């Protein structure tokens, strides 16, 4: 694992919002690194600033202080090395464009020949199993399929890391399982680096190679847990493993502690 280069480095990240009742510290002090080709899940109690963190990472929001680095250079704005999949697929896909148009949109200003662009789009749509729906409009598809379109758009963009913000929170359980397997598959077959934010503990353990457990706000990384489940995962067998149960119980306890705020004392001194 030593040859894996550091992809993303977050150091002493802090975000304070100004509000009517004075400043609110959303993110206290977040530190972690992510290697190329990793699938890292971030979980935390609700309202712990997951979305704020993600927006800071993606360069959509400027942190109050601290550093986000991609390949050693600081992220100051949206970067071509990252693609975000938002939770609200209905608002992230443009309803006036077709599925193909949506996937193609971010590629328009990349210096690609028409044929290359076509190939990327077709390939991305095939990868999420939507090759047949290219000419539909997003709103003609089910929620799960719409989120597949958003994933295809991120794939076609060819980022170094795909950042997913609770992408499956709004779809039903059955669809959700299928989409989780799609993420695992993209990670395995395309060696994609994925940063996956969720509030679902089972999902984080099932998907991740690592799980970062966040504290409640002001947020810091309460635990960085390596998931030692086999790389080949399956909704039924993996979730039935005793190790899976152990890990999810462990994460569950951590979240409970985070909610109570017990873990504050354990914060490592910098």
């Amino acid at each position, binding site marked *: 694992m030593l040859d894996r280069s550091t992809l993303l480095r977050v150091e002493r990240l802090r975000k304070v919002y100004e509000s009517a009742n004075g400043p609110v510290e959303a993110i206290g002090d977040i530190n972690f690194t992510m290697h190329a080709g990793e699938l890292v899940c971030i979980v935390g109690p609700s309202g712990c600033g997951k979305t704020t963190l993600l927006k800071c990472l993606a360069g959509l929001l400027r942190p109050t202080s601290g550093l986000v680095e991609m390949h050693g250079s600081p992220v100051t704005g949206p970067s071509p090395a990252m693609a975000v999949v*938002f939770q609200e697929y209905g608002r992230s896909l443009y309803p006036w464009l077709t599925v193909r148009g949506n996937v193609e949109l971010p590629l328009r*200003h990349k210096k690609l020949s028409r044929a290359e662009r076509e190939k990327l789009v077709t390939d991305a749509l095939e990868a999420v199993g939507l090759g047949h729906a290219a000419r539909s409009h997003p709103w*003609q598809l089910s929620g799960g399929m719409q989120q597949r379109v958003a994933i295809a758009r991120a794939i076609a963009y060819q980022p170094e890391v795909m950042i997913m913000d609770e992408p499956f929170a709004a779809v039903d359980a059955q669809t959700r399982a299928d989409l989780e397997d799609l993420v695992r598959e993209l990670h395995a077959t395309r060696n994609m680096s994925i940063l996956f934010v969720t509030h679902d503990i089972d999902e984080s353990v099932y998907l991740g190679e690592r799980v970062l457990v966040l504290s409640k706000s002001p947020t810091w990384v309460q635990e960085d847990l390596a998931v030692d489940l086999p790389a080949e995962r399956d909704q039924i067998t993996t979730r039935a493993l005793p190790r899976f149960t152990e890990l999810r119980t462990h994460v569950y306890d951590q979240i409970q502690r985070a909610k109570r705020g017990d873990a504050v004392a354990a914060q490592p001194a910098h």
Partner: protein
Amino acid sequence: MTAQTSRITMTRRGRGVGSRIVGSFLYAFGLPFLLLVVWAVAATRSTNRFFPDPLTIFRAFVDTWIGPAFVEDVLPSLYRLGLGILASIVVGVAAGTVIGLVRWLRELLEPLLEFFRAIPPPVLIPVVMLLIGITDTMKVVVIVSGAIWPILLNTIEGVRATDSVMTETANSFRLTWWERLRFLVLPAASPRIMAGVRQGLSVALILMVISEMFASSSGLGYRIAYFQRNYLIAEMWSGVLLLGLVGVFLAVAFGLVERRVLRWYHGLREVSRA
């Protein structure tokens, strides 16, 4: 056997379609036809010379408008109307987009625009006449000065209300300025813009007529006022009919364009309503 059953159902369905078409035809044209007949009967019986019977109006319509008058009066009017509408849309959407995107500009101009929108458009005719004089340009400027406000204000509102997640998506994929305008801001505002254009169209038509009644020696509005002053009743009615037709034509043309431009919007609404 299968073939036979299918043929039977097909003929049955065919008859159903046929009677349905006849039904729709009756529904569509029954009442207008009935009213025309009533009008014709009433006109022949009454002595009121202000209401000639439909046939007389129709004959006057053919005599008055089909011929040189079409080139001298109708075409110039329509040309000015079209030019005015086009200019209103171009200027209104362009300015509205800029104002909608720049918050301080929007806040600076908002009370002023509210005031200008509230001015009844026809009172601008004398003002424009005073500033520009009585020319063809003046009539186009009059149309623009009235029709632009609903388009401008609706564009501002539509651009301002661009969805935050959609904007964030554009940010995260680093869309260029032009791509944002072309693929995000304008399409997102298009339902509002179209609503503004629809209001603008009716204002434009009103202003075309009034400005010609006021200050012109040609054009549809001028002709109709002329017929009225000279008690050419059937001719005047034919003018009203022609204006009605222009109005209907504008509404139909707009409907066609709107259905094309906003197909995604109507589809989306239908899906979310179901």
